[in-house]
């Protein structure tokens, strides 16, 4: 079947099998490999992307279900001149990553979280990121990064 969606502002139209998962559409058809496949069972959140502005686990959504949607992946956050998105900058400045495998998903989930809860407490951030696992257990600095980014966004 032929499906089309906007990914990071760019139209992507491809022929896919109906069973193609959104994460495979993004990684293989669109060659945007910043989005990772982690657990592949919608537990870990490494595959989190934004679908019409909301965080979704792209390993548990059919590409066909996203036909016509606007998708944002980690590649779409920074400005055209390379300036990092405030959430990316906060992760970098606060050492919000260790091995980096969960990072794209963490950042995307955090962008969605701050959109919905502009003034989160530390507890809000921990609850809001419950769908994202960091196997390095680097949660402390991840939470700190999100709080810093939220603070920056409010100013």
């Amino acid at each position, binding site marked *: 079947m032929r499906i089309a969606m906007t990914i990071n502002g760019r139209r992507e139209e491809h022929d896919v099998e109906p069973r193609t998962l959104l994460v495979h559409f993004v990684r293989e058809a669109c060659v945007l490999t910043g989005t990772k496949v982690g657990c592949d069972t919608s537990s870990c959140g490494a595959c989190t992307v934004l679908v019409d502005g909301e965080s979704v686990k792209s390993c*548990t959504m059919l590409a066909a279900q996203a036909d016509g949607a606007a998708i944002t992946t980690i590649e779409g956050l920074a400005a055209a001149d390379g300036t990092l998105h405030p959430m990316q900058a906060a992760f970098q400045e606060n050492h919000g990553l260790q091995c980096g495998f969960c990072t794209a998903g963490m950042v995307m989930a955090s962008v969605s979280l701050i959109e919905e809860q502009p003034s989160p407490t530390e507890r809000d951030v921990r609850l809001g990121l419950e769908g994202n696992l960091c196997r390095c257990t680097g949660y402390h600095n991840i939470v700190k990064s999100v709080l810093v980014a939220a603070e920056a966004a409010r100013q």
Partner: protein
Amino acid sequence: MIPAPFDYIRAGSADEALALITEHGDEAKFIAGGMSLLPLMKLRLATPTVIVDVGRLRELSYVRVDGGTVAIGALTRHRDLETDALLGEHCGVLQAVAAQVGDNQVRHRGTIGGSVAHGDPASDLPAALLALDAEFVVRGPGGERTIPSSEFFLGFLETALAPDELLVEVRVAATGRNGFSYQKFNRRAQDWAIVGALAVRGITATRVALVNMGSTPLRASAVEQALASGASVADAAAQADAGTEPVGDLNASVEYRRHLARVLVRRALEAAV
């Protein structure tokens, strides 16, 4: 993990969805958010050959209050329930339970109707709706019928919904801001409940439901009866596992689940004021 091959058809209306499911027969399945169905398909525990996508039927996404009844469209997402001011005012308990389903990403996709139709005893909303004596409005080839929640959950992932019927609405009596407490016990934040207990206070009676204590969501009838005859919270909660048949798994043995049910029902009753 990739699902087995299937044909995908997106329905433009509820009537079209019903016509499609009738046309394609038993091998066809509705998909809404897909939060329950897609994992099963990826593990090939479910292998429908036709998927009818009802996820975009906005006509079935709403919360309405009419007199003392709260009507919720089957395709209302958990996220919508979590943020709907009307629901918070008229049925705060359902809002609080919806906010505990899965995680943010799951709540952005999953729907109340999908959760009910899946009929998982470990899910939060089916048990909550059982406690609230919900009614489920389903539409099929012969028109609409209403199924009481007490007659809906028949077995593990088995409901009274016929393969050619679509759940269209969930109805509950408004509880206003009556006291309630949902105690969900799990090991990782986003997981299904190992055991869950919900207590809802009412003017005349307290209703108690159990998550993951058998093949279906359950009412803790012995607890409700004990409370109705004046038993203390501690004495009533001691009967929380009466009549249940929980299974043991990697997370908990049968005895541990029974213990959790008694403890969580006591906590829920103490907190629901």
